[in-house]
């Protein structure tokens, strides 16, 4: 019975998708909105790897890591509650590995993310958008076996302001955003650890808050989109990786990234892709990443 219901929903969704007029797969870092009553599900595969990292400010290789690779598959539905209010959910499955050394790869379901996206101002192609984000760890993964851990186990509340101007005729746009992330303390399996040059006798670890800033320039058309982007992600404080030690969740991780993003969605079904490269960082790997995704948009029947 249950199976059949699911099948019906899928069928209905497929049909409505075929008739859906507007195709607008969207992300938490753009000013695109799903029209009311439509859903776009993105399923994305990401591959990110580095063979050099910043140990504090020292850029180094590690022959006992070789190349470190993080891969993930993420399901990301964007839901049009109204034309100006969207919800974006995300849930990744992540796995890590190294090409050298003895460290065991980690794998598992990571954190459930949710963004509420509101178009607050919308005047002549110019918009200001407010986003509130929430991320909650779903998997019981180990957060302090870095760099192999798949996440940090933080609960995160994010506030983001995103401004966009899209030239109505050409579809050329510029976007800028800034985000502040409040990150919760986490619990680790150990009841003593070292951070800030001292030993803490507790299993609770302070993870620094973080911010990001991004700028994008691109073209958005009915069926396709292309953009180049630059982002800066940074903790607001934290300690540094000690000489020849491993990273730890208290580290002040920072990265500057540049990249390209594109999307092609002629009908309900579409694809998107992104490449990114870290140009500069602190307490992080200098990663090169690419992402490819499949997008599928459909309408939801009102009941």
């Amino acid at each position, binding site marked *: 019975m249950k199976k059949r219901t699911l099948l019906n929903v899928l069928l209905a969704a497929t049909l409505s998708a075929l008739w859906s007029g507007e195709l607008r797969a969207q992300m938490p870092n753009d000013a695109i909105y799903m029209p*009311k*009553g439509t859903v776009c599900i993105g399923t994305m595969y990401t591959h990110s790897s580095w063979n050099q990292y910043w140990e504090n400010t020292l850029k180094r290789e590690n*022959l*006992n890591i070789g190349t470190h690779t993080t891969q993930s598959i993420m399901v990301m539905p964007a839901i049009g*509650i*109204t034309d100006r*209010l969207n*919800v974006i959910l995300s849930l990744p499955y992540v796995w890590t590995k190294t090409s*050298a*050394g*003895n*460290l*065991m*790869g980690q794998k598992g379901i990571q954190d459930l993310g*949710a963004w*509420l996206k509101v178009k607050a101002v919308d005047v002549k192609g110019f918009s200001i958008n407010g986003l*509130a984000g*929430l991320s*909650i760890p779903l998997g*019981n993964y*180990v957060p*302090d*076996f870095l760099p192999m851990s798949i996440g940090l186990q*933080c*609960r*995160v*509340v994010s506030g983001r302001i995103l401004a966009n101007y899209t030239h109505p005729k050409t579809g050329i746009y510029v976007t800028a955003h800034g985000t502040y992330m*409040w*990150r*919760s*303390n986490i619990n*680790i*399996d*150990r*009841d*003593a*650890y*070292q951070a800030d*040059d*001292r*030993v*803490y*006798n*507790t299993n*609770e*670890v*302070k993870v620094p808050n973080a911010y990001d800033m991004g700028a994008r320039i691109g073209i958005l058309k009915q069926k396709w989109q292309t953009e180049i982007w630059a982002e800066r992600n940074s903790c607001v404080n934290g300690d540094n990786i*000690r*000489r*020849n*030690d*491993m990273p*730890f969740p208290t580290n002040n991780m920072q990265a500057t990234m540049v990249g390209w993003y594109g999307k092609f969605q002629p009908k309900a079904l579409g694809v998107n892709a992104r490449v990114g490269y870290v140009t500069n960082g602190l307490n992080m790997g200098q990663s090169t990443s690419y992402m490819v995704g499949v997008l599928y948009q459909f309408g939801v029947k*009102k009941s």
Partner: protein
Amino acid sequence: MKKFSNILKYSGLAFAMIVGMAACDKTLEEPQRVGYSPANVDDKAGTWKTYLLTSAEEINVPAPTSVTSPEYVAELAALKGLSNTLTKEQQEAVVYWGAGAVYRWNEIARELAARYNIPPASNADGKYPVPDAANPLADPKFPFANPPYTARALAYLSVAQYDALVSAWNYKYKYKRAAPSKVDATLRVALPVSALPSYPSEDAVVAAASVTILKAMFPGEVPYLEAKMKEHLEARQWAGMNVQSDLTAGTALGGAVAAKVMGRARTDGMSAANNQALTAGMIEAAKSRGIKETWLSQEVPIRPPMLPNYGAVQTWNFDKATLAQIRPAIPYVVGSAEWQKDFDELSKINKNQTREQARIANYWADGAGSYTPPGHWHRAAANAAHEARFSEVRMARTLALLGTAEMDAGIACWEAKFYYYTPRPQQFGLKTSVGLPNFPSYTSGHSTFSAAAATVLGYIFPEQAEKFKAQADEASVSRIYGLIHYRVDCEMGLKHGNIIGNYAIARGKADGSGL
């Protein structure tokens, strides 16, 4: 749909606010330790058997001035001035040091061990520079406070504290100078005052003894240690606990006893513990004993093994003939059916480590950046002794029994490791979730350290013996779950550690404490 969107909007916002507030509170709660009046002042401790002092009076402490002398009256007046009103910082220092002198200096030593527990990085030539005691803050820092190093540092620290306190107790009850607040009831004191005579000050004895040992063990930390000692001595005056002459006499005694203890440390064989020239002969000897496949470093570049000759360092509670006698039997040889069975167990975990296995492996990992397994057990002992409201001298005895057992465990385990020179499971393709130690596999250091510690602590705290034993067993099996030891390494390590712990108990039972 509108209604639905509103519900979603508001519940989402409310949820975000709740989580947001939880996310904002970053205060960490750590267990706080405060001072106490000891359950027993151990007034006969001046007769307890010392480790290295030939007698409790080997170091002379001159008789103090009488409490009616003008000198003492002046000291008391000065003390009143210092203890009358305290700043917030002074109050905090009083509370911090009031938790216990031995307790705090053991904690400081563990903290230093953690800060110095990082293996040197390889240089551009693919070599690992050896830390240099003469240049301790250069890269790599000296020391690399690995488990054998930390076991030894903590052993000398506790032995120096213990011998110095036994001597101090002797003089306390010989001279019987009352605490300042018992001489003058109007003196304001910030800590519990026991019946213990105050000359020489047990806090000054412990501070000076500890700083003397720790300066030698962590030569890059001299300014830090001197600042800590200064604060410790000042805190005794801010608390109204000791006049200056109590502190001066205690400082002299503690420093002199520790200097004698350092004499043993300098000649205990540690300077030859990293003699890498011996390893070729060790490998040949292991092969002649039937070990077909010997240990190889799994690091790139190949890292020389950690302290291959630590097994030759002087033991505390048994002699070298005993060390050879109690050495664990030869382990399963690679390729044998028994070895295969142990390896298969690890292969299974390698494929499908459970979260609980990972948790246990992580809890006991005590790897780089930690105060190592000996530090872990010192913490357990210090906390148990604090909760039992042990006097300073009894706490020092506890930690000396534990500390010497841990150093003996390290020596005996390392001797076995390099006697058999057996390969780690990673030599056969397995990974690890805790990091791979760079020295031979058999026996497990964690198992040996933990069983020795649990045995000693079970003797001192009989009502907690089962808990400590269960913890040691878990520490041992954690190395299987972390995939870096075969079961036989762990089981034989536990047995070995238990025997080693019993030698410390034999000493404890014969030290005249009647405990």
